């Protein structure tokens, strides 16, 4: 899977042009227009044809490649600029492969009380979901779940670990094409 950067570019190109192409995934027509670089558009066409029936595992790999998680400040649930860019990449993937459904898991660091952290994780998952919806992803394809402080990404009692654990992670839940 060496063509990831290209796929990402293609996905971003699609975002720019995809407002009304939700029915057209897998066809090259939408991506070719207005993308500027004809060379790239050709490559995109090939990749799209190859990957139109992504299995959930492949989709998950792509998601991880794009960046499957966004991070939050202490006791915060507003998206950072970096977080928005990550979610824009996710939205491009989701707008390209309409069969994919995702679960957004909201998480908190260990420096709060358990129940409050569940609520905070729920807020974070929804903040990520809402931005994906703004970017054109059908809310019916996104489920949210909070784990509060129960499932840290990094085990540790230090600022670095806590920063990694305050996150909303987008997990590919399924793909009708792949199942």
């Amino acid at each position: 899977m060496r063509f990831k950067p290209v796929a990402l570019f293609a996905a971003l190109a699609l975002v720019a042009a995809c407002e009304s192409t939700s029915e057209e995934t897998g066809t090259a027509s939408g991506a070719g227009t207005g993308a500027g670089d004809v060379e790239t558009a050709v490559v995109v066409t090939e990749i799209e044809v190859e990957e139109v029936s992504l299995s959930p595992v492949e989709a998950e790999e792509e998601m991880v490649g794009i960046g499957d998680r966004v991070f939050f400040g202490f006791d915060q649930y507003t998206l950072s600029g970096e977080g928005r860019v990550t979610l824009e990449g996710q939205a491009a993937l989701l707008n390209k492969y309409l069969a994919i459904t995702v679960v957004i898991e909201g998480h908190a660091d260990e420096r709060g009380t358990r129940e409050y952290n569940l609520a905070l994780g729920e807020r974070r998952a929804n903040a990520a979901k809402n931005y994906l919806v703004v970017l054109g992803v059908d809310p019916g394809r996104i489920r949210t779940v909070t784990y509060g402080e129960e499932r840290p990404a990094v085990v540790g009692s230090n600022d670095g670990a806590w920063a990694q654990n305050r996150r909303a992670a987008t997990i590919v839940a399924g793909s009708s094409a792949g199942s």
Partner: protein
Amino acid sequence: MIVGTLCLIQTSGLKRWKPLAAVAIWLVVVGLATPAASDLRIDITRGVVQPLPIAVADFEGSGEEASRLGRDIASVVAADLERSGLFQPVDPKAFIQARPSMETLPRFGDWRVIDAQALLHGRVLFLEDGRLRVEFRLWDVFAEQQMAGLAYFTAPNNWRRIAHIISDAIYKRITGEDGYFDTRVVYIAESGPHDRRVKRLAIMDQDGENHRFLTDGRTLVLTPRFSPTLQEITYLSYTGGAPRVYIRNIDIGRQEVIGDFPGMTFAPRFSPDGEKLIISMAKDGNSELYTIDLRTRAKKRLTFSSAIDTSPSYSPDSRQIVFNSDRGGSQQLYVMDADGSKVRRISHGKGRYATPVWSPRGDLLAFTKIQGGKFYIGVMRPDGSGERLLTEGYHVEAPTWAPNGRVLMFFRQEPIRKDGGGGGSRLFSIDLTGRNEREIPTPLDASDPAWSPLHP
């Protein structure tokens, strides 16, 4: 568990209280000397209490099994009293009169000389119908007067409960307050790596005995609470992948999802009458408090705010609810009337305040406080005044009251070390003076304790 009838009988007048669902235990007042007034008293409302030296002699028993039970009962009672921090059991090796008889007066001089201010002894008998008769006498050694004398009849496998009931009787006789030894604790047993911790519902007696896992750990479970009858617990479970509030009958072991809500439900507690649950429901990222009538399943929304509103607790008279909310910008404690009206913030100190729990006596709220990178367990009056911090640590959380409102249990979690070790979590009890903190033994790591009411 066999459910029978509990009755209390006093020989003076043979007054019979109303039967309640519980393990069958009968009680009789044992008279010998005149149960005259005694000055022996611990005032636990005062700040510093010198533990009362008490001699707990092995209960006599005719035959090997009765003798063994007599020793075991005495050791359970002595351990209960010692853990309370109010009593100092005298080392039995110092006893001159090893086993006082129930038929005669103790040799008070023998107990005075070893500085025992109180003496407990008793007897265990197997009755012809297979039941156990356990009787005890409590003496004021210096006044040479009997302070209490009671006999209990029960099935032999209830001997631990009898021991705890005796501890409660002694505690009440000497402090004037209800005891809390005949109680259970439901909590979350933890094991495995910290990024995929295995969590199981577990239940035990307040001293850690009779430990039992209620779930197998395949599903994440959190924050259990007892019903007022002790027959059921409510908790959060990720059964099927979605966090929802469940109620489980402890003995039957069946769980049932509560409420038909569009979002996740969490932070459940029973109302004091057991007829309702109060929970948080989160939809679109916003957590609000609701009640559910357990018979009609009618839902009622109590809070209306875009903030996180959770961790509710009813006042014992059911008229008010305390909860934590970040509606003012940071996590603080709020009290409202039970219908959701008259919301007012009560915590005003520095830091964040969380997990408020109303004392069964109604006079105090216990809470978790987070300030300056540390966690604290504290208490304050329901109007927010009189804040007192009882203990602190890297992470202490989730206070739960003993039914007498004098002792709290909570969990204490250690930081994870650089080498990946540490991070353990254990249960502790602490009294309201903050001076008597004790670990509660559990087979695995432990968190989210909930103390039961006294057995009905």
